[in-house]
Structure formats: C-alpha cells, structure tokens
C-alpha cells in the first residue's frame, strides 16, 4: 500500500534556482494539499486542490505554484527559490475536505535553499 508518495526526499538548491516537488497518491482521493512544516510552528497550508484540474491558495502561497493535471498527482513548484523557503514540505490527500475526513500524508521533502 503506497498511499502518498513524495519525490524527492531531500534536495539542496541555490538561491534563485527552480524545482518541482512531486506528490502521487493511489487512494483515488479528490482532495490534495501541500503544507510546509517549520520548527516551532504548526503545519501551514500552501495550496490545495479539490479535484483534477483545480487549485486554490492556502495560507502561505507566495513564491509557490501548483498544478493538478491528473487526479493522482499534485505538483508544487518553486520558480525562484529563496532561503526563507527552506523547510520540510508535506503533501496530503483526503477523500473529502480536511475538516470532514482524516488526511493521509507523505513522508515529506526536506528542502534547503543556500
């Protein structure tokens, strides 16, 4: 049972570089989310999607873009990485909305921006 798979697991970037984080789920969930987790803070929602072809902004969307071209995949892009984007990024999915059903999380991508 794969669940939610995130790639890559680790990445180091230089300021100004771009990259894409990939999230894939095999549970046929409609809803998908991207969070960032920083020390001493709660999870913060970056962007989310309520179905294939849809995306919406969360609490901290600036500097990130997302796409959901296929139901099972949710991509998070950093166009021009900044040191403030050093964090652990988690993808999650759920059958219904986060307030209605438990979310299933991937194991995270640890991203460092130098």
């Amino acid at each position, binding site marked *: 049972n794969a669940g939610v798979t995130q790639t890559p697991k680790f990445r180091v970037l230089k300021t100004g570089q771009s990259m894409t984080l990939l999230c894939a789920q095999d549970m046929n969930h409609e*809803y998908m989310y991207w969070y960032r987790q920083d020390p001493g803070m709660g*999870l913060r929602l970056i962007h989310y999607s309520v179905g294939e072809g849809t995306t919406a902004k969360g609490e901290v969307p600036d500097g990130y873009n997302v796409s959901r071209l296929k139901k099972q995949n949710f991509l998070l892009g950093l166009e021009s990485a900044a040191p403030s984007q050093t964090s652990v990024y988690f993808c999650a999915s759920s059958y219904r909305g986060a307030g209605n059903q*438990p979310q299933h999380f991937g194991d995270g991508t640890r991203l460092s921006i130098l």
Partner: protein
Amino acid sequence: EDQVTQSPEALRLQEGESSSLNCSYTVSGLRGLFWYRQDPGKGPEFLFTLYSAGEEKEKERLKATLTKKESFLHITAPKPEDSATYLCAVQTDLMDSNYQLIWGAGTKLIIKP
C-alpha cells in the same frame, strides 16, 4: 484571532509512567478537533477526531478527551514505541471544510525504557 496552543513542547517519561498532553484552543466556534502522531522523518498519521465537549475516543494506550476550551491526549502506561510528536489541529465554524485547519506546533513525547 483563532489560535491553537499545545503544551508542553516536550515531555520525557519513563516507560509505564502515565501522563497527558494538552491542546488548548481559542476559536470562534469549534467544528472539529483532530489529533495526529508524527514519527521522526515521517508525515503525520491520523489518530482521532472529536466533535463536541464531553466526547472521548480511545486507541490502545491513548485516550483523547474534549472540553469547550481544550483537548487532552492521555497516555496510559506508555511504551518506548509511543515516542513521537503529537499534533493537534482545529476546524472552526467559520472555516471552509475543504481545507482550513489550524495546527498546533506539537508536543514531542519521549518514552525512556
């Protein structure tokens, strides 16, 4: 401003020593409160959902309770494998259930054998 605060930040217990973790919330109206467990290097894993004051849920050595101002995660006779960070999240009446939760920073629980 809606807020979720977890205490303590870290808790060290001996194996078998029972204790409680706290999640206090200041929100306009609670729709649901969620507990998750997070192991080092892993994503959060769902434990419980509580909806109304007085509600209790149990799973193995864990029991979650809810009042109008806070939730407790009681751990009875813990084992080393219960060591993890425990996260609390809240949804309020004003929130869009599609995505909006307020997350606490977590309590890191360490159980020594």
